């Protein structure tokens, strides 16, 4: 297979307006990846699949990654004038990288027996209802795996034929693979009529702070 930057140049020539970025992989595995923009993702995917030199007809692995917002502290040397004298001082600056969710696709070619080409898609933020274009219409093997990402990470894939929860039950509300997920105290909680009774019973009791006067103390 050609090098990643050559592929990038060819895609940009074939699909005008496609914004691509190479994400380097510093590790020994040396599998760098290609970041696609949302608008051209499925066109680029189709190009990768159908291009006679690439023929990446087999999408092996699709997965989500959660990147939290992180602050990186950097020490920067700054020249400053202190008491009429120019001095070089060290300052710590904080750089904030906003968090995002990511879908990673590992593409191989069964026709030419090469690969992998790693393709990434990133959401704008980590909010509920983050969107990405679905690549299931291009590679059917993404169907269950994108459903799994939707289930566990909460990325909505536009254009997915059947986007439902796959591993968690339908009534479940959170996304367990997110890094800031906090597990509930009671997994198997189901609301029952008895809960309403308990809720009503609570209203009969006087709130505790008013009873022993702590509320007044706090007010003073």
């Amino acid at each position, binding site marked *: 297979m050609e090098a990643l930057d050559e592929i990038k140049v060819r895609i940009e020539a074939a699909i005008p307006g496609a914004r691509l970025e190479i994400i380097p*992989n*510093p*590790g*020994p*595995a040396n*599998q760098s990846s290609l970041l696609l923009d949302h608008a051209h993702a499925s066109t680029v995917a189709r190009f990768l699949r159908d291009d006679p030199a690439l023929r990446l*007809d*087999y*999408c*092996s*692995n699709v*997965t989500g*990654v959660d990147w939290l917002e992180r602050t990186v502290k950097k020490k920067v040397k700054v020249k400053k004038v202190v008491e009429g004298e120019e001095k070089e001082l060290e300052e710590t600056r904080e750089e904030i990288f906003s968090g995002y969710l990511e879908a*990673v696709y*590992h593409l191989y070619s*069964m026709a030419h*027996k090469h690969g*992998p080409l*790693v393709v990434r898609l990133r959401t704008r933020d980590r909010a509920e209802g983050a969107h990405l274009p679905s690549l299931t219409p291009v*590679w*059917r*093997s993404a*169907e*269950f*795996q994108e459903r799994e990402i939707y289930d*566990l990470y909460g990325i909505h894939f536009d254009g997915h034929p059947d986007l439902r929860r*796959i*591993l*968690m*039950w339908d009534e479940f509300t959170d996304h*367990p*693979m997110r890094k800031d997920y906090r597990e509930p105290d009671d997994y198997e909680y189901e609301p029952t009529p008895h809960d309403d009774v308990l809720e009503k019973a609570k209203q009969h009791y006087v709130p505790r702070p008013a009873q022993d006067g702590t509320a007044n103390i706090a007010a003073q």
Partner: protein
Amino acid sequence: MSLSTRAQHSAVEAPPGMPSRLDGELLEVSMGPQHPSTHGVFRMNVALEGEVVRRLKPVFGYLHRNHEKIGENTSYLGSMPYTDRLDYICSMSNNWGYALSVEKLAGIEVPERAEYLRVILAELTRLVNHASLLGFLLSDMGAWGTPLMYAFRERENILDLFESLSGSRMMCDYMRFGGCRCDLPPGWMERARKVVDGFPHFLDEFEQLITGNEILIARTQEVGKLSAELAISAGITGPGLRASGVNYDLRKVDGYGFYPRFKFRVPLGEHGDCYDRLMMRVLELRETLGILRQAMDDLPAGPIMNPKVKIRAFKPPVGEAYGRIEAPKGELGFYLISDGSGNPYRYRVRPPSLINLTVLEDMCLGHTVADVMVILGSIDIVMGEVDR
């Protein structure tokens, strides 16, 4: 349903896109999760028209324990015994897949003897998996018990070998990053040779039992056909893909381990039906025996662990890696992202069993409900891996 209600409903039009053969009425049946032929806690919501399947939606998650989250919260070594529980029939292959990915992530070399041992154990696992699958599949088709017991007799011999090597029959936890945990006990190789030499007898007997059997042919030929184009697009791997005539075996394509050193052929099917998928396993078993004999003859002496690797306080450099092996069920991949700390930032298992189920509905449509069990059996799933 009484005759009078049937007459009433016959005027109702069939749902759009569903040609009516009876009275256009679909019966929703929930098959599983407690069903003897679903190979675990797997459920299918099937819509039947008479006996014919018109819609099939698989339901997952009954065995979900978020393996990947647990993997992210534990050390790299801590996940190794837990990979045994993915596909609990083939723990050695799972160990290898994980070890291979971590070795890619950290750039670790593996000594020669360890690579040979890995090939031998992974191929023994393939014998276990394919033999028991054939037994299960025939059991699903009504050959109750006998073929399964024949297969389990052979499996038992191999599990004894695993036990004397690793201390456990099924949850072996044998491989490590940069090698294997312990060397062979004395006399192990002689016993393994005896098992491998006795295996063709079982295979001949088994093949006589199945290949010419009229009932088996009627139940499997032309059932659950899968075209090569759909198989590639849907990411089907392993014997299921090769039964459709696609020559893609990671042992040849990636050439991981020392597989390029061994001579073996990749059997290919023609029709992509259940019969081809079944025979693919029988043919692969014969090739596997060949690889085992070669590996056992050539096994070199030497160390089994790379001494430079600190497996306990293991901290790979920042980066990511995707490693994959040809597990008995298909491509088993592990995707790891390291942030330089002692546990992976992202730990992902690419389960062949789950992705091979993508086309279950396409394969079952138009067949009778009794064929669904045969088709599902021929895909070969283990729920520990599907749900993770």
